[in-house]
C-alpha cells in the first residue's frame, strides 16, 4: 500500500477523564476524498486535529506520506519532536477551520502570503503570484486588498481554503467548513471543495452535509463514541448502512 497518504493507527485521545478517541484506524489514499460523518461529540473534529498535531495523541500514531507526525522513531521509542519541527510538518497539512480564523488585521492577499514567506521562506514576489492565482481559483481575485471582515462568511471561508492551498499541502483537512455559514452561502464553499476534489487533492472533510458526501466522497467514514463504526463507499454507508448506530444517525439527518 504505497499510495496511502494518511495513515491513522490505533489513536487514543483523552481530555482529562473524558476519552474522546478510543482506538481510531483510518487510511486515506492519495487523491481520494474521505468524508467523516457522525453525531456531535463523536470525536470527528478531535481526530482531524490530531492529524496535524494540534492535539497530541495519548496512544497510537499518525503518518502522512510515510512520515510520522509529531514524533521521530528510533527502534522501539517514539521521540517527541520539537515545536519547530512540528511546525515544519504542518506546512504539508492544510487545515480549514469552522470559523475560518483568517487574520483580521491583514489583507486577504497578506493572509495568503504570510505562511509561504514565513514558514517556507518563499520569496515574497513568488508568494504573491501564487496567492493571486489561488484567489482567482476560488473566485475572489477582486478581493485581494480587502480585509477579511469586509467579506461575507462564504467568501471568508473561500479565502481560508486558498490560504491553506498556498502551502501546496499533501493533504487538506476540513473541520466542518460550512457549519458557521448562512444556508445560502454553503453552496459556494462546497463548490470550491468539489473543484479541488476533481483535481485530485487528498482531502479529509468533517461535515454534516450528507448530499456533499454522496456526491464527492470516495470513502465515507461514520464515527460514534470515539471509534469508526463503519466505512466504505458512499453508496454502501449512506444507502445500506450495516450498523444500527449509522442507521439511527442517518435517519435523523436525512
Amino acid at each position: 500500500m504505497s499510495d496511502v497518504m494518511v495513515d491513522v493507527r490505533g489513536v487514543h485521545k483523552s481530555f482529562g477523564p473524558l476519552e474522546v478517541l478510543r482506538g481510531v484506524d483510518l487510511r486515506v489514499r492519495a487523491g481520494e476524498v474521505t468524508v467523516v460523518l457522525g453525531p456531535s461529540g463523536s470525536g470527528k473534529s478531535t481526530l482531524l486535529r490530531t492529524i496535524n498535531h494540534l492535539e497530541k495523541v495519548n496512544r497510537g500514531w499518525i503518518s502522512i506520506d510515510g512520515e510520522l507526525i509529531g514524533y521521530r522513531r528510533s527502534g522501539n521509542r517514539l521521540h517527541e519532536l520539537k515545536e519547530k519541527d512540528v511546525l515544519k510538518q504542518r506546512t504539508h497539512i492544510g487545515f480549514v477551520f469552522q470559523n475560518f480564523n483568517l487574520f483580521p488585521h491583514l489583507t486577504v492577499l497578506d493572509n495568503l502570503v504570510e505562511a509561504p514567506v514565513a514558514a517556507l521562506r518563499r520569496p515574497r514576489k513568488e508568494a504573491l503570484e501564487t496567492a493571486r492565482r489561488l484567489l482567482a481559483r476560488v473566485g475572489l481575485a477582486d478581493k485581494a486588498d480587502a480585509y477579511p471582515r469586509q467579506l461575507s462568511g462564504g467568501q471568508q471561508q473561500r479565502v481560508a481554503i486558498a490560504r491553506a492551498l498556498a502551502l501546496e499541502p499533501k493533504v487538506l483537512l476540513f473541520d466542518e467548513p460550512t457549519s458557521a455559514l448562512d444556508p445560502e452561502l454553503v453552496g459556494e464553499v462546497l463548490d470550491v471543495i468539489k473543484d479541488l476534489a476533481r483535481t485530485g487533492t487528498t482531502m479529509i472533510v468533517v461535515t454534516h452535509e450528507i448530499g456533499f458526501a454522496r456526491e464527492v466522497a470516495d470513502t465515507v467514514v461514520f464515527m460514534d463514541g470515539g471509534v469508526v463504526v463503519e466505512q466504505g463507499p458512499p453508496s454502501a454507508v449512506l444507502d445500506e448502512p450495516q450498523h444500527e448506530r449509522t442507521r439511527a444517525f442517518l435517519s435523523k439527518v436525512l
Partner: protein
Amino acid sequence: MASTTDTAPPGPAAPGAPAPPVPDDPATLKVVPARHHARWVAAAAVAVLVAQFTHGLATNPVWEWHVFRDYVLSETIVQAVWVTLQLTAYATVLGFLLGTVLAFMRLSRSPVLQTVAWTYIWIFRSIPMIVQLVFWFNLSALYDRLGFGIPFGPVFWSVDSNSIIGTIGAAVIGLTLHQAAYAAEIVRGGVLAVDEGQLQAAAALGIPRLRQIRRIVLPQAMRAILPTAGNEIIGLLKGTSVVYVMSIGELFYQVQVIYGRNGRVIPLLLVATAWYVVLTSLLSVAQYYVERRYARGADRTPPPTPLQRVRRFVRTLRTAAAQRHRPVVPFKPLGDIR
C-alpha cells in the same frame, strides 16, 4: 421634562375637544422637536460658574501672568522639559520591552519563567516608585562595584557602580523597572484578548513561533493594549516629577528651584502645569492615530479622522455657499459616540 413636551402622535384627541382633521399624507405632518427646559437651566448654571472661574484666572493678581510669560519659554524650563521627555521616552520604551518579555514569561508553559515573572510583578507593584528611586540612588551603598564573571565564581571585569549608572541612569532604571511591572500586565491582558483560533490558525500554517507572536498576536493585542498603555505613558510623563527627589533637573525640580529662589510659587506651578498639559495633549493625539492604525481591518469602513472631518465640513460649506443653501452635514469633530 422631555415627556411632557413631546408632540402627541396623531391619534385620539382630548375628550370634549373636536378631533383635529388628520391629514392623509404623512408628508404634510409637521414634526415639533421636544423642548428640553431643564437642560437649558443646567447649561446656564454651568456657564456662569465657568465664566466666574475664567474671570478669576484673568483678574486675580496672585496668578501673576507676567511671571508665567517670563518663564514658560525660558531656556532653563525648556531644557527641563527636554529632560522630562527623555526620562519618559526611555522609561516607556525600556519599560514596555521588559514588560512584554515578562508578559510572555507569565504566559509561557515553563513554571520557572511563570513564577519569576509573577514574583517580579508582585514585588515591583508593591514598592512605591519614590521608595524604589531612592534605593537606586543609593545603589553604590548596596553594590559598590558591578562586573562580569562566573556566577558565584571569579569576576573578570568590574567598574564602580556610580560611575556607569549616574543619577539619570538610576532614574531611568527606577522608572523602567516600575513601569515594566505594569506594562507586563497590560500586554498580558492584550494577548489574552486575542482569539484562540488565531494562534491555532498560525500554528496550523506552520508559522514559526516568534513570528506568530510578532506578526499575528501582538498586532491584534495592540487593540486592547493601546488605551491602557496610553494611560500608563501619560501617567509616566507626570510620574517623572517624583525624580525631583534625586535632584535631577526635570521640569518639576527646576520649577521648584526657581520659586525657591524668587518666591513666585503660583505662577511657576502654572508653568509646570501648562507644559504637562501640552505634552499630555500631544501624547493623546499620537495615541488616537496609533490606535487608528492598529484598528485596520477591525471595522468594515474606518471612521474618518478629525482632520478629514474638518475638510469634509469645509467642502460642504463651500458647496452650500455656492448653492446659497445652508450646510446640511452637521460638524462633528469626534463623530457620533458609539
